[in-house]
């Protein structure tokens, strides 16, 4: 994105202002910021659901403002929303996953391969014949993810995709995202939970429509994030204090198990 600005019709101020941001293949970027800071608008710009009113967004070199590129961009950048109910379309699990590839007009053998792979990646193989509505919240969110993966995208944009999940559901969803990223999938994760952002390889902070900070998690969680008014999880506060007292070495992340290991008690 170069100088990307986006204004909603009739709004007094743009939702996104002058954003320069480059996400590289295979990267896991956490985009954090308060409600209304422009994160979701930026997510929609990533897959050409919204076209910048100023500036340019290129996905794999393709300019999103050229309608000829829209299809190609949307196939490659999959968006997973907050509420899985918003994107589950079929009543049977495997039919829901097949919906996207079927719409691409792919041969049935190819569709089958994609559906199997997406169900396997999301741990839903055993549920393939089940009714979508009988799944738990966590399973539904993984189904929404499977539907996105069946499009064989290069990148996933997750817009607060874990906010409706219970802690166990969130763990299993994020575990799945971690594996996909390890296999080379580019991830843009929108969240305001610091304990989720800690898994990313890079953090960008949005405030009032602008990207105001962009850098490494070690730097961000070393105390930088406090400047931006995020809620400090208790283990993060502990981590910060232990760093300040020289009890923890600098490269430790604010994760309970990492800190225990580094303490050498």
């Amino acid at each position: 994105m170069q100088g990307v600005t986006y204004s909603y019709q009739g709004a007094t101020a743009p939702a996104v202002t002058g954003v320069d941001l480059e996400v590289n293949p295979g990267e896991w970027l956490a985009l954090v910021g308060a409600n209304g800071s422009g994160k979701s608008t930026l997510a929609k710009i990533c897959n050409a659901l919204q076209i910048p009113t100023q500036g340019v967004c290129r996905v794999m070199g393709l300019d999103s403002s050229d309608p000829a590129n829209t299809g190609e961009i949307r196939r490659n950048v999959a968006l997973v929303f907050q509420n899985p109910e918003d994107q589950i379309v079929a009543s049977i699990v495997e039919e829901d996953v097949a919906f996207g590839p079927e719409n691409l007009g792919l041969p049935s053998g190819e569709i089958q391969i994609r559906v199997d792979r997406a169900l396997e990646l999301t741990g839903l193989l055993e549920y393939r014949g089940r009714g979508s509505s009988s799944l738990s919240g966590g399973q539904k969110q993984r189904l929404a993810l499977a539907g996105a993966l069946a499009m064989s995208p290069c990148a996933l944009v997750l817009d607060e995709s874990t906010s409706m999940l219970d802690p166990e559901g969130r763990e299993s969803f994020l575990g799945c995202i971690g594996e996909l990223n390890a296999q080379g999938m580019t991830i843009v994760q929108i969240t305001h939970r610091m304990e989720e952002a800690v898994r990313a390889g890079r953090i960008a902070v949005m405030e009032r429509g602008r990207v105001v900070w962009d850098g490494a998690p070690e730097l961000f969680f070393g105390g930088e994030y406090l400047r931006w008014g995020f809620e400090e999880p208790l283990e993060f506060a502990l981590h910060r204090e232990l760093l300040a007292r020289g009890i923890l070495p600098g490269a430790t992340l604010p994760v309970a198990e990492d800190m225990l290991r580094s303490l050498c008690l």
Partner: protein
Amino acid sequence: MSIVVSELRHTYNEGTPARSEALRGVSVVIERGQWVSIVGHTGSGKSTLAQHLNLLLLPQSGSVSIDGTDVTRDAKNLRGLRRRVGLVFQYPEQQFFAETVRDEIEFAPLNWGVTGRELDECVEMAVRSSGLDPALLGSNPFAISGGQRRRAALASVLSMRPDYLVLDEPTAGLDAAGIRELRQLMASVRDEGMGVVQVTHDLEGALANSDRILVLERGVGVTCGDAESVAEYLLRSPVQGLLMPPLARFIAGLRERGIHLPLTAGVGDVINSLEERLGCEV
């Protein structure tokens, strides 16, 4: 003065293949002036229990009594009892229907026949308790910010002057500042004597803020008590869908290394213990 839930059972779609037992014998007491959190995995029965508290659902078996009145025995009085328990749904702002914030807040008291000066007082009190900016009363509820919208939704329940406030996942979708403000608000209505019930899957928030916590697992209350006793229980017997908060996990790890602290100890206590131990080693 309290809501007493005793051996409550609820089954959806009884007699059909989709039959599911949501509550299988849950008991809990909610006192006025207390903040009780109900935590559990998705599908554990939390919301079903919440809907019994304000009598949206009536007991199929077991009982619910509000300030001494058993709802199954006094069905005629349902309307009056319901008024005492305000229920705030998940994403309450999605249910706005009026054209202005004031109309939204006035709706419930008007339906109870409250008018004139008393109505104005209801609105004023609700605005004050919810922390809503009074300048927004004339605004369209869909045109105000997310945080103010959540407050307007709360005000529209508080305007009934309930004795108990039941909130289903009240912090979902709010940012850090919004969550902090909402928790302050819940604490302040609790301190004014209202019974506050929060349904949540945020165990960490529940441990840090509520007076008592009820843990549900597949429709059964597996433990109920103060934060420390519930944390100890969860360490001994993990419950589906609930993960120990990271700081408690850290403290459990310290225990294995010979440093004993309560699981709900604060950051300061943990640091002191660590410094003490490391100081000894030097």
